[in-house]
């Protein structure tokens, strides 16, 4: 799916005033099948951007075109159909605690299932080999019949990723897919995600805190800082200075404040330890 935005602006989900902005002035173009990582400090508006691209939130102004169509001009039925062709994976896996992994994973396929088939699948899961294969990509095949609340945080996150594989979507919007994974799993999960997206020809847009992983696995990186586009470059062209500027903790703000209070400016954050949590 192709994404085109121009001067896109949106509010936070829980906004308090009319001029609250999660991000503004974003103009991007992401081609079909491209793989992009979005990086930036906390509060930069990355999650809100994914939600707007997923048509889960209406932008305040600006234009958003998915495959050349403005989703908010479509009829409700057409919008629902469009939503079935994209997949938003939130940072906290949206899995009901007592559901079994097999049902949670197969739920990704609901947009293609009739009402009767989906209800029948609750009793007798409809595609056991498919669910197993998706879980196997993330090294979780043996947890097929486990209950979600019996899994660790990292395992639940991988179930959320396996659900992405099961969906019929051509646009994958993944929010922080690695936040609960231990370092040994990071590589494997990201590898599986990127390879599956390539096999399916799906457009993959991911937000990441792990900058080195973003640079290693994604050909294109977008930097977001305080709701504005910092850079949009091929990963080979991202300089340490650009990263420094991106993650610097509001030094100019501290400068002005410090000038009146005599406080020192903050030091810039080192690039290699990018786990901003």
């Amino acid at each position, binding site marked *: 799916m192709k994404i085109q935005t121009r001067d896109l602006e949106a509010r936070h989900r829980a906004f308090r005033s009319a001029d609250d902005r999660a991000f503004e002035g974003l103009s991007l173009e992401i081609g079909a099948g491209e793989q992009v990582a979005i990086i930036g400090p906390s509060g930069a508006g990355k999650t809100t951007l994914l939600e707007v691209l997923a048509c889960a939130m209406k932008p305040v102004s600006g234009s958003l075109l998915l495959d050349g169509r403005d989703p908010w001009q479509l009829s409700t039925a057409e919008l629902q159909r469009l939503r079935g062709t994209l997949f938003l994976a939130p940072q906290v896996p949206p899995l009901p605690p007592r559901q079994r992994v*097999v049902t949670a994973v197969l739920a990704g396929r609901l947009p293609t299932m009739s009402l009767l088939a989906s209800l029948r699948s609750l*009793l007798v899961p409809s595609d056991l*080999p498919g669910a197993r294969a998706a879980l196997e990509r993330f090294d979780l*095949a043996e947890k097929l*019949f486990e209950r979600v609340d019996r899994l660790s945080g990292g395992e639940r996150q991988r179930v959320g990723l396996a659900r992405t594989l099961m969906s019929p979507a051509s646009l994958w919007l993944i929010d922080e897919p690695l936040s609960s994974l231990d370092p040994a799993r990071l590589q494997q999960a990201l590898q599986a995600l990127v390879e599956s997206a390539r096999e399916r020809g799906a457009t993959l847009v991911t937000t990441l805190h792990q900058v080195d992983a973003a640079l290693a696995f994604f050909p294109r990186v977008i930097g977001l800082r305080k709701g504005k586009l910092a850079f949009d470059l091929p990963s080979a062209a991202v300089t340490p200075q650009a990263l420094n500027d991106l993650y610097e903790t509001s030094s100019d703000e501290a400068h002005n404040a410090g000038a009146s209070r005599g406080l020192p400016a903050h030091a810039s954050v080192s690039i290699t330890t990018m786990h901003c949590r």
Partner: protein
Amino acid sequence: MDRGESIRDPATASRLFLILAGLVLLWPLLKATEFRPWALFEADSVQATVRFLGSFWPIAVEPDFLRLVARETWRTVAMATAAISLALVLAIPLSLIAARVLSLSALTGTMSRVPFLIRRLIHGVLILLRSIPELVWALVFVRVVGLGPTAGVLAIALTYTGMLGKVYTEILESTDPHASRALLRTGSSRTQTFFYALLPTCAAELISYTVYRWECAIRSSVVLGFVGAGGLGQEMDNSMKMFAGAEVATLLLVFIGLVALADRASATIRRIIE
């Protein structure tokens, strides 16, 4: 674990079994309760229903009747309040005895035989009181003390003693025993311990449950009226036996209003306590 195409869902067998078992059990249940929903739509039943519902409108609003309704409403509320007060008076000492938190012998390890047996006995009495529906008590008491609110008050008081007593005991036992044990160890009497250690912590929960039960008691009072305990329930029974639909309608509305009021009052009191 299986590989390839032959993956079996371990839950399918038990699910199918449960569904079959449920269906097998459903049939005798339907038979035992003479479940015939189509009977509701038979000609004479529909006619009777329509006639009865039709007599609801216009509702009875003659001043004499309304005065009677007002008097009986007050009677119902008074019955419930008196009953709950009696139940409180009985339940509090029983629950204090039954609560293990106040056990002196348990301070130094396990409880000794006699206090343990006494506690078990009181538990049993409370469970017994709470298992017998108040209507049954009312039926029996009406034979002993005659028709009227006395039978109703006694019946509700007994059943609710069981309910209040059991829940009070549970509330007392679920508090952290640290404070009470400390006081008991330094020689305070059990009553003192209750007032200084247990009551401050549990008061809100105790009062909240009691107020909720007061609301239930109002509904019980109406039900008991059907067996002769007076109040709104008795008037409703009388009116229904005479097929006076208009009066039944007024009584129902008044009753629903009363329950709503009691609900609001109880919510307010509980909010004040928090």
